């Protein structure tokens, strides 16, 4: 099976350690994955803001970059959701039949990281070690657009040394929402403030989620409020072992 990793643009530019962690983790599980260097972005920023024409070349680049792979793994629920639910719409809009066909071939091969680990590789214990008090935020797109269910929690529960505590009102949106975070900045931060308060209530040292964009928002609030709670991508937790 030829496996590619879609690192995602935000991880590439802002959180390279998450991309690193995905490769470390996959290597440990015996999967030699590629980083197709032609990849850029899933086009979600354009699509979700309503710029569908602008999204067309980005989607085209996506299907070109990932052509020829059997599985495309991404450490982002929202990017996986965007590919599966929005690329077809963008292709339709472009009126380009070849693009539509390429999208139809590529989109079903995209897996959010925990889907790939649990469903394709069939593992929940990835041999990780992380001796910290952790709480998990299921991001909206993982939860509702993709329906990843309890896969992330099953993976986390199998981590050695972890003290996993439940997050109150876990399935409530953190308020990030892409450009919503700036277009409706005040509403967004009001939502995020409630999320941050729930995180603090758990007494966790680390907040974990499967989407760095949500963590950028919640982490930014936690940091501004000088709470001392750090945020980490799920892949980074799963990549940790006793040696590293």
């Amino acid at each position: 099976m030829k496996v590619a990793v879609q690192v995602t643009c935000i991880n590439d530019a802002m959180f390279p350690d998450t991309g690193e962690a995905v490769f470390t983790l996959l290597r440990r599980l015996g999967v030699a994955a590629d980083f197709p260097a032609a990849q850029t972005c899933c086009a979600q920023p354009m699509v979700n803001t309503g710029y569908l024409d602008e999204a067309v070349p980005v989607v085209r680049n996506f299907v070109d970059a990932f052509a020829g792979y059997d599985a495309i793994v991404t450490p982002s629920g929202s990017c996986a959701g965007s590919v599966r639910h929005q690329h077809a719409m963008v292709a339709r809009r472009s009126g380009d039949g070849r693009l539509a066909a390429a999208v139809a071939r590529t989109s079903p091969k995209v897996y959010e990281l925990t889907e790939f680990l649990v469903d394709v590789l069939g593992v929940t214990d990835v041999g990780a070690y992380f001796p910290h008090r952790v709480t998990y935020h299921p991001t909206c797109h993982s939860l509702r657009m993709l329906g990843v269910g309890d896969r992330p929690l099953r993976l986390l529960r199998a981590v050695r040394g972890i003290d996993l505590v439940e997050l109150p009102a876990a399935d409530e949106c953190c308020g990030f929402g892409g450009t919503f975070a700036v277009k409706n900045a005040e509403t967004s931060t009001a939502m995020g403030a409630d999320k941050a308060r729930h995180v603090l209530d758990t007494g966790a040292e680390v907040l974990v989620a499967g989407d760095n964009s949500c963590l950028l928002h919640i982490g930014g609030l936690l940091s501004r409020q000088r709470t001392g709670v750090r945020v980490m991508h799920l892949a980074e937790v799963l990549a940790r072992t006793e040696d590293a």
Partner: protein
Amino acid sequence: MSGTFVGMPAFPAAAREALSDAQLRRNLAHATSTIRAKRAAVVGEVDEWEELRLAGAAIKDNVLHHLDEHLLRLEQSLTERGATVHWARDAAEACEIVASIARRHDADEVVKVKSMATQEIGLNEALAAHGITAWETDLAELIVQLGDDLPSHILVPAIHRNRAEIREIFRERMAAAGRPAPENLSDVPRELAAAARLHLREKFLRAKVAVSGANFAIAETGTLVVVESEGNGRMCLTLPEVLVSVVGIEKILPAWSDLDVFLQLLPRSSTGERMNPYTSMWSGGTEGQEAHVVLLDNGRTRALADEVGRQALRCIRCSACLNVCPVYERTGGHAYGSVYPGPIGAILNPLLRGVGVDEQTDSLPYASSLCGACFEVCPVRIDIPEVLVHLRSQVVDAHRAGPPKGEAVAMKSAAWVLSGARRLSWAERGMGVAGRVLNRLGRKVMPGGRRALGRLPWPGSLWSNARDVPAPPAESFRARWRREGRR
């Protein structure tokens, strides 16, 4: 008389006011979380809930696909049962029809059953212009009307008020509208309800004309259906000599047997009850009553023409999407500038009015984080996030001709950078240089060890006013990958 939404500012500005009102936010958080829990519990009792949702959506879709036939059928059945059918293209026509019926009966007041359609068309204000006073008889609507306020929820229009506020409204305003509030009225809900009851009873007994909407209109039998919790609707529907019902053309159900599905979906979704307390059905007028039905378009055919958006016409106004919406919970209903607030308002208003016309309407599709909670609860499976994104694209397209906004320029350049790996890599290299500098200069260290940027200039300030931003890494992932020559 209650106010109107005309001239409301765009959502972000309107939301600001609500966000800074701590009392309002407490009222809303309390009310929505209570009803959310109630709904979840009673929906959880129904094993075949998903099948019911699918059935509800299918019935409504069928109606929408053959709306012309169903409408003619409804008109025929209604006429056969003695009702007079009127067709109204827009709000003005509908209001004129109601006003002329009232005038013909020399009525200077009408009693109203809570109805979204009549609020949508601004009937109360239009009747007032004809010298006719419309009295709301639903308790929450009464509170809004007496308080000279605007509704902020589909089902519980006064959700933003607490009982102390309601007591004040009753004490100060009831007298001018009819029977005054009793002396020493307390804020115990029971007493408040009793005061409203006495106040309203006088109106039911006096009014010659009643105005209602309908939750459902059954084409097969010409039956209109109103579901409610207080019984005031039933009083309005039966006591007055003339009954005028304003019904959106999407309210049709083809057959009597379809009602079964919706009488299960609606109460559980809306009030979190297994059954609603009062279900009134009438086919034509009740004994000796003159019955009129105004079939209202007012933008519905426009919405129907929108391939993606037309699913919004399946809406049964249960308000479940409002109660779960994290944006609504924090901003309340007024921020949406319409009688239809919350997620459904964010799509229905642009669909009914059309985008690209005013800033307020155009701001609504963006009043969502696209979290999807609304879709999850909607009893007729309206994919609200999908319609929101679709409408955003319409808003963007509507403004493509004029001078580009800053956002459009930013999106175009982002798309240019993001449609080629080489361009992206150059952009990241720039960020990397900035990152190296900022990593030295950044004074604040975020938990986990990364440096934070300071407060950014506009538009970055929209982010950094409340949230720290980590400094960019010195090297992007792709740069590291290339440098290390990993395949």
